């Protein structure tokens, strides 16, 4: 369960968000420039904002009225930005281990993740030698290795060709069914939203326009942005 109530100053408008969602897979759906990425960054604690409150599973991450601001490293929120943003100077294995320290996160989750995401053959490779789809799988693994309470995915399929998309989607579905951790998935692609979301939050022109089941919400032509 995540509850968000924010005023987010963006150029050229202020994004007002008041929403809560509890499903395993929530899709944040909206056109480019609606402020989706900024919202993810704010949830992760990477973007300061003046007014608002965010709580995750009962933990307050940010509350402007009580001057609470948990830094990103204490939020336990995994973040997979667009184009994966792997650490270019580290190998795949080192990327996966980056957030895993002996104390906080059990080392045994790593073999499971390597298995789940089919990363076994990539471990020694450098990120520069990976394909876009492989990068995305590593980025997923890197975020999940820290056992986050919420995973933020920013258009993970963007820029991939149809074939690569089709090879990634099963992993995302596997992730969803494994129930490992709930995710918030940003996209402006209609089909992805229907395919992956249990629940859709619709973001247009600076506010939440609607929230509901993907089939109900996205059947109307009105909200097709990927044409």
């Amino acid at each position: 369960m995540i509850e968000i109530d924010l005023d987010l100053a963006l150029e050229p408008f202020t994004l007002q968000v008041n929403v809560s969602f509890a499903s395993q897979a929530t899709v944040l759906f909206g056109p480019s420039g609606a402020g989706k990425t900024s919202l993810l960054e704010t949830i992760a604690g990477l973007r300061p904002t003046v007014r608002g409150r965010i709580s995750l599973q009962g933990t307050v991450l940010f509350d402007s009225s009580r001057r609470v601001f948990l830094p990103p490293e204490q939020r336990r929120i995994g973040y997979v930005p667009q184009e994966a943003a792997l650490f270019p100077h580290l190998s795949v294995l080192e990327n996966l281990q980056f957030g895993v320290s002996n104390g906080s996160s059990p080392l045994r989750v790593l073999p499971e993740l390597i298995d789940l995401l089919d990363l076994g053959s990539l471990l020694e490779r450098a990120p520069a030698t990976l394909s876009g789809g492989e990068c995305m799988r590593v980025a997923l693994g890197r975020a999940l290795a820290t056992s986050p309470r919420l995973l933020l995915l920013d258009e993970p399929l963007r820029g991939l060709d149809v074939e690569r998309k089709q090879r990634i989607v099963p992993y995302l579905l596997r992730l969803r069914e494994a129930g490992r951790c709930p995710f918030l998935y940003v996209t402006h692609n209609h089909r992805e939203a229907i395919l992956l979301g249990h629940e859709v939050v619709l973001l247009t022109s600076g506010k939440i326009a609607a929230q509901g089941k993907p089939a109900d919400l996205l059947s109307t032509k009105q909200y097709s942005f990927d044409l």
Partner: protein
Amino acid sequence: MTHQVANEIVALALTLRIAACAIVLILPFGILAAYGLSRYRGPGKSLIETLLALPLVLPPVAIGLILLELLSRSTSSILFTWKSAVIATAAMSFPLLVRGARSAFDAIDPRLADVARTLGRGPLYVFWRVTLPLAWRGVVGGLLTAFARALGEFGATIVVAGSIPGETRTLSLAIFQHIEAGRDAAAMRLVGLSLACAFLCLWSTERLLLRSKRGR
């Protein structure tokens, strides 16, 4: 002749020592300033950048005079010792280090540090393990350029440190003294030495930056 060669070795060793001390002195501040400038987005940014770049364009003797004023107010006497030569040299090379390191920090995708934070790592850890390793070529490049500048420092040094043989008479000061005394051949030998040192520094910088452009 051997006496002269010995003098030249003394001047070279002294120059290298003063330049190295200056670089060590400015390295932490330079990296910090470069990183800060690269990330800072608030008011007064261009003012700070202008101030930091001033020593690049001000006459070195003007910097020397400012330092002379500042240092003459401190109680312990470091003026006209090798320490003051280090300070003058440091002031003159600082902007070059900052410039080099800063463009390296600018070139890093800021999302990498962001992601690293969400992976549970604090800012210091992220700086050491992500930002600095990705910027190191640029930092070392800036460092070498600053070092090359330090080797040639003249104007600020002569004002605050004089030209004391074996203590503050670096290569460039020794060259000037040789010219004044009419020993052109000796001056030219030192010019050759300076040229070799400066060439080595700048050439390694170019090689380093070229390699980083080809991809990490």
